[in-house]
């Protein structure tokens, strides 16, 4: 059963990831990313991290990717224009590099763990309480710093996206734009 779910969603994740990267229309890319994220969330549940899975859906798909979609629609970016000059070398080099990296990492993983399996999930591991306790004790400073980082990001985004004077287009939805990334934290 678990194996089935794993392969189902792993395949979905890889497939949609390919669509993200290959599709010419950014709207489809964005939606495919949503699929990938949801597949990964399911895998998280399989790995005994339901909280992270919920956060993944809540924050990533519910907020961050919506923001992407929002921007795509706001800027009304159409399809990528036909490939121009000198794209080939870059593509080949990137592809080869990515494959080399994949091969290397895969070999390393396989060498290290093989088909090793882990024991069944324990109550403690799934427990949100243990996770939360650790977050608010050992990682309290990091937590606070992340809060600060988000504040800085909000201010930065507001400053960057704030329009000086009136320019046409975009409609009245702009005020919401900068803050939207704050969702859920």
């Amino acid at each position, binding site marked *: 059963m678990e*194996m089935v779910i794993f392969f189902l969603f792993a395949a979905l*994740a*890889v497939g949609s990831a390919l669509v*993200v*990267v290959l599709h010419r229309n*950014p709207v489809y890319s964005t939606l495919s*990313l949503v699929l*990938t994220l949801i597949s*990964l969330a399911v*895998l*998280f549940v399989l*790995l005994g*991290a339901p*909280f*992270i899975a919920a*956060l*993944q859906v809540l*924050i*990533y798909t519910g907020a961050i*990717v919506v*923001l*992407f979609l929002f*921007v*795509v629609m706001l*800027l009304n*970016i159409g399809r*990528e224009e036909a490939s121009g000059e000198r*794209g080939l070398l*870059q593509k080949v080099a*990137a592809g080869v*590099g*990515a494959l080399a*990296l994949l091969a290397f*990492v895969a070999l390393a993983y*396989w060498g*290290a*763990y093989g*088909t090793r*399996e*882990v024991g069944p999930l324990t109550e403690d*591991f799934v427990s949100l309480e*243990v*996770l939360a306790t650790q*977050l608010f004790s050992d*990682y309290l400073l990091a937590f606070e710093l*992340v809060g600060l*980082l988000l504040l800085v*990001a909000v201010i*930065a*985004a507001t400053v*960057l*996206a704030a329009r000086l004077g009136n*320019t046409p287009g975009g409609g009245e939805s702009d005020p919401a*734009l*900068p803050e*939207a*990334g*704050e*969702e859920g*934290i």
Partner: protein
Amino acid sequence: MVPVSWYLLLAALLFAIGTAGALTRRNGITIFLSIELMLNSVNLTLVAYSRLLDDHTGQLVVFFVLAVAAAEAAVGLALFIALYRHRRTIDLNRINLMRW
């Protein structure tokens, strides 16, 4: 039970796809999406290791990655909007003022 190395391999595959996308695409938004993909593959690795080592630290790092990704998305997209406003494009091949 699914061996943990499979999750790791899946993550590596997603990472490679994301990398290739980030390097080959010219649309700023798509590149950004590819980077998000890479981030998520790392998240999967972290959760897998969390499971492998029976340690919550991996999950907590994912939590922080989520927060940082949110910040990154907010700032990055604001940058794209500002960029678009000035240049009327987010095709990175056309935004090559870093030369000279």
